[in-house]
């Protein structure tokens, strides 16, 4: 297999990079998503990620396969966390390896943009004065 999709409690950049590195690929691009410490000026205490894991993995694999078949990427890893995360912690890592750098940059952007639109994962933000499911309401 030359793609890796995983959802688990804790992820590292290194495991994604280790998976995609290959002698035939001269470019590896990585996107790292972390917990921001504020939203619209309000301090964020923590995030909680809920996943419909079997469907989320299927949707992540669709993204990975599209990237490999249409975007010139040889190896791709998409990792996402579930559960509680504190500001600064890593919540998503995407690594793409290609013979040349251009395809790798484009693939990372496509993967994170599409993940945010299609993968059934939900984020709740906890503030000092309450909590909210992100982007649930218009």
């Amino acid at each position: 297999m030359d793609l890796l999709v995983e959802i688990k409690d804790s992820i590292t950049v290194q495991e994604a990079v280790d998976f995609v590195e290959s002698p035939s690929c001269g470019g590896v691009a990585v996107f790292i998503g972390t917990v921001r410490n504020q939203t619209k000026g309000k301090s964020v205490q923590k995030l909680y990620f809920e996943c419909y894991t079997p469907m989320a993995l299927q949707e992540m694999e669709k993204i990975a396969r599209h990237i490999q078949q249409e975007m010139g990427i040889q190896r791709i890893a998409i990792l996402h966390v579930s559960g509680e995360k504190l500001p600064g912690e890593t919540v998503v890592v995407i690594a793409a390896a290609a013979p040349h750098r251009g395809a790798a940059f484009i693939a990372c952007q496509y993967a994170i943009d599409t993940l945010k639109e299609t993968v059934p994962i939900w984020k709740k933000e906890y503030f000092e004065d309450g909590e909210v499911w992100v982007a649930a309401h218009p």
Partner: protein
Amino acid sequence: MKVLLFGIAKDIAGAPVIQVDAPVEQVAALREYLYGRYPRLRDLRSCMIAVNKVYAADGDALQPGDEIAVIPPVSGG
């Protein structure tokens, strides 16, 4: 049929899984049933239905034994 709920939809229903005994045979009919039972679902930016872990269209049929899930607006990443 059983219906799985996630995120804010789970909070609105007050349960991660609900039993639906109404005779709903299509995705659109299920959504209307859910809107009637949980009116706050109407306030969401979107309310997709997944059948067997795939996003379903309004006209898709529901079969006994399908794994059905309510997918409120996703916000991963």
